[in-house]
């Protein structure tokens, strides 16, 4: 199943878009017209349709099978949400058309904000961040702005980050000039308040803590940690990547967080789309609320309006994250999800997600090894590779062998604090029947590995659009775009 590249099948003169040439006119380009060819191939519409349909057939998606990628929350993407996002009143409005012509769009943003603030028990929300990592940046900028407002900008420049954190956490902190101080991992998978206290001091600006954490556990000392952080004059940034486990079960504001980004594409099921676009609104506590970036929405005499520049002294926005108002398309999808589920459905979804993960855990516990002991997890279950010792099979091999069984692999080698980590997140979208088949497949593979059937693993995948790909070669001699093969180029001249 090899599909040629568009550059191999397209022609410069071919087009799949019919346009009439404009009548003759005098251009006003100041003599900067392009003279050279661009080098873009065109395809007629039938050719393009087939090319992309065939490409899609080489992909795996939630709609085609269980997608247990831990930390990524591959839940069902309802098509109602897609339909709503395509209503011309949402998809066909410009960010800078008069505010009087987009009241409904502001209403969507305001309603989404109300839901997010209610679900988290916080004070306000900055909607504009374009993805989770962008949300982290937003939250940390708000913290930095607050620290500077207190005149501590020069002294508070350390951020505590547990070793188990997503890489985006330290990267974000470093990006805006913080120094990262790691919080070491413990063998129970939890961050301990005592460890945190030891690292606290007048130089600490914030902690970045993921909760539920990347080991699939709810941080059971989170309230104490928050108190210690606040007592030290620092802020609590919560990585909300795993908020989906506790929506309707606990409110981060009640746990003491000051800022938390919410991945609308995870928790509220806007589609991942092969890597984006995401959306990462950030909820903020009362302490950080004044520093929220522009733009934001306020009500003036009951009419929603958009604030694109700060106007009065109670607002001290730290700046602007992006050109316009963030990911409207995702707001619509997320709000549609929330209206559909309701408070009861969202709570049930969290419970089912946790139930599904624990069902997998309980069903594999006799064969797989759990790094932090046999105890309940949240929405994802973490195994390590201790059980594969001496089998000659690695976590990578095991993952690739899952492909041959018709499954997308789980997240592997993350979190880094666990050796050969396998992080499985089934989400609430899977039926029990689906989980039972998945469990049976994993048990069969595990038995096979233990029996020493290494070929099944080392050569996997055998039944996929491609066999295992050479990633080393790709990185060593990067080929990042198509270039016309030399012989053909010569022949053409």
């Amino acid at each position, binding site marked *: 199943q090899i599909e040629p590249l568009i550059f191999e099948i397209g022609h410069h003169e071919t087009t799949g878009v019919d346009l009439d040439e404009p009548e003759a006119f005098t251009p006003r380009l100041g003599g900067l017209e392009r003279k050279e060819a661009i080098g873009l191939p*065109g395809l007629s519409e039938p050719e393009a349709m087939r090319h992309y349909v065939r490409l899609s057939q080489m992909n795996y998606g939630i709609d085609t099978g269980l*997608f247990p990628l831990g930390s990524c929350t591959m839940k069902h993407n309802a098509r109602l949400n897609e339909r709503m996002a395509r209503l011309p009143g949402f998809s066909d*409005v410009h960010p800078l058309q008069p505010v009087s012509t987009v009241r409904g769009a502001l209403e969507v943003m305001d309603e989404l904000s109300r839901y997010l603030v209610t679900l988290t028990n916080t004070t306000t929300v900055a909607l504009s961040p374009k993805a989770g990592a*962008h949300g982290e940046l937003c939250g940390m900028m708000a913290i930095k702005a607050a620290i500077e407002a207190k005149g501590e900008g020069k002294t508070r420049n350390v951020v505590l980050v547990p070793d188990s954190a997503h890489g985006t956490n330290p990267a974000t902190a470093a990006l805006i000039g913080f120094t990262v101080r790691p919080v070491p991992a413990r063998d129970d998978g939890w961050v301990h308040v005592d460890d945190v206290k030891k690292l606290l001091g007048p130089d600490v600006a914030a902690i970045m803590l993921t909760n539920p954490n990347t080991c699939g556990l709810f941080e059971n000392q989170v309230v104490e940690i928050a108190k210690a952080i606040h007592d030290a004059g620092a802020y609590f940034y919560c990585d909300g990547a795993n908020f989906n486990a506790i929506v309707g079960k606990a409110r981060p504001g009640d746990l003491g967080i000051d800022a938390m980004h919410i991945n609308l594409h995870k928790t509220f099921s806007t589609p991942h789309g092969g890597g984006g*676009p995401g959306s990462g609104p950030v909820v903020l506590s009362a302490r950080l609320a004044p520093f929220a970036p522009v733009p934001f929405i306020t009500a003036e005499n009951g009419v929603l309006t958009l604030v694109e520049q700060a106007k009065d002294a109670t607002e001290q926005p730290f700046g602007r994250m992006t050109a316009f108002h963030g990911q409207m398309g995702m707001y619509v999808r997320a709000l549609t999800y929330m209206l559909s589920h309701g408070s009861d459905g969202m709570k049930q979804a969290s419970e089912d997600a946790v139930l599904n993960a624990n069902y997998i855990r309980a069903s594999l516990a006799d064969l797989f090894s759990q790094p932090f002991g046999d105890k309940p997890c949240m929405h994802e279950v973490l195994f390590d590779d201790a059980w594969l010792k001496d089998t000659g099979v690695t976590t990578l091999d095991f993952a690739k062998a899952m492909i041959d069984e018709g499954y997308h692999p789980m997240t592997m080698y993350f979190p880094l604090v666990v050796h050969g980590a396998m992080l499985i997140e089934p989400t609430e979208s899977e039926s029990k029947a689906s989980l039972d088949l998945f469990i049976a497949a994993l048990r069969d593979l595990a038995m096979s590995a233990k029996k020493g059937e290494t070929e099944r693993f080392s050569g996997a*995948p055998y039944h996929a659009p*491609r066999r295992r790909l050479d*990633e080393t070669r790709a990185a060593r001699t990067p080929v*990042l775009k198509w270039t016309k093969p030399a012989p053909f180029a010569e022949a053409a001249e």
Partner: protein
Amino acid sequence: MRYLPLTDTDRGEMLARIGVNTVDDLFADIPSNVLLKAPLDLPRRKGELEVERIMSRMAAKNVPASSVPFFVGAGAYKHHVPATVDHLIQRSEFLTSYTPYQPEIAQGTLQYLFEFQTQVAALTGMDVANASMYDGSTGTGEAVLMAHRVTKRRKAVLSGGLHPHYVDVVQTLSKMASDDVVALAPDVSATEDLLASIDDSVSCVVVQTPDVFGNVRDLKAIADKAHQHGALLIAVFTEVMSLGLLQSPGSMGADIVVGEGQSIGNALNFGGPYVGLFATQSKYVRQMPGRLCGETADADGNRGFVLTLSTREQHIRRDKATSNICTNSGLCCLAFTIHMTLLGEAGLKRLARINHANAVKLADQLAGVKGVEVLNQTFFNEFTVMLAKPAAEVVERLAEKGVLAGVPVSRLLPGAGLDRLLLVASTEVNTDDDRAAFVAALKEVL
């Protein structure tokens, strides 16, 4: 609930296998005083019909671009996107897939990213492009950070023709990272002396063309001066369609080219999601932020594609990463690359010519209205007019008459004394009737 497959019987059997009595036993780590006992005070679940009604009611309060004569631009543009594009990006295998971490079952995503990178490199006239950024503005911020890494300097010079929101994004990021920014004054007629700002302390010069006021800018002299001083030229565009007609930034000497790709394949969406395009020279590739897709082979020797050079990225390098970014604008890239493939070189050039022709027609017609002065000598599909009255007021009154006339400069640059300036864009969607309606309404209002 329609989205939740478990039945109560299932739940009971599953709890039994787990060996707990209730689902709350699984939430035991949540402090009991924090664990919510009842659903929050938000509405209960709703059926599709009801949700559709609520959302449609809100949608109906907005005025869609297609429903009126529409001339709003300033960084986002109304274009026609073929039906094929939206159909294809909704294919389950594209829409519901993840970042292609398992390349063997993600060749669809990876191949289109490789094709996308090649298209963007060609369009911008650069060696390499990444697999997209969030949008043009954040991409510009990343470009400045990249220039700082490459030059090991920390001062950026921003042209007064750079979109004010892009300026804000760069300044916010720079302020937080304690980097320096020299933002030149708004430059309506492209007469600023950028060269004077360039010295050996400068990391990069950021210039937009066509600039926010619509002027087409020649970058060659700026590139030369920057290179003489060891600085980089970052060329920015907010209307990618212009690259169909204008010399590529690469051919004019840009070191990094970054811009907004929304116009190809993507809807207006009230500002997002969009797709940031980002390209540079080969020598800087390891300092480039964002995802990259590269060609390789599989165990059978068949061509295949993988994400590559990820050692630059946050999940490996953590606080030493080139950027904290860990997604791209996947589906928006896909829309871009499909639309671009449908257009092809011939189609893109023709479409760009139509845009320019429509803008020229509109400029000539507006110039004939009393109280309107077209300021631009050069432009692509957007230009600036000076009105006899404050532009914000005029736009509001035209909106009441059913014409969305453009962006008042005062909205982007409040307090800059440019209140009578209006940015007006015209694309292939505008008809003679649209223009006539605009002119007629304007005559009434001015």
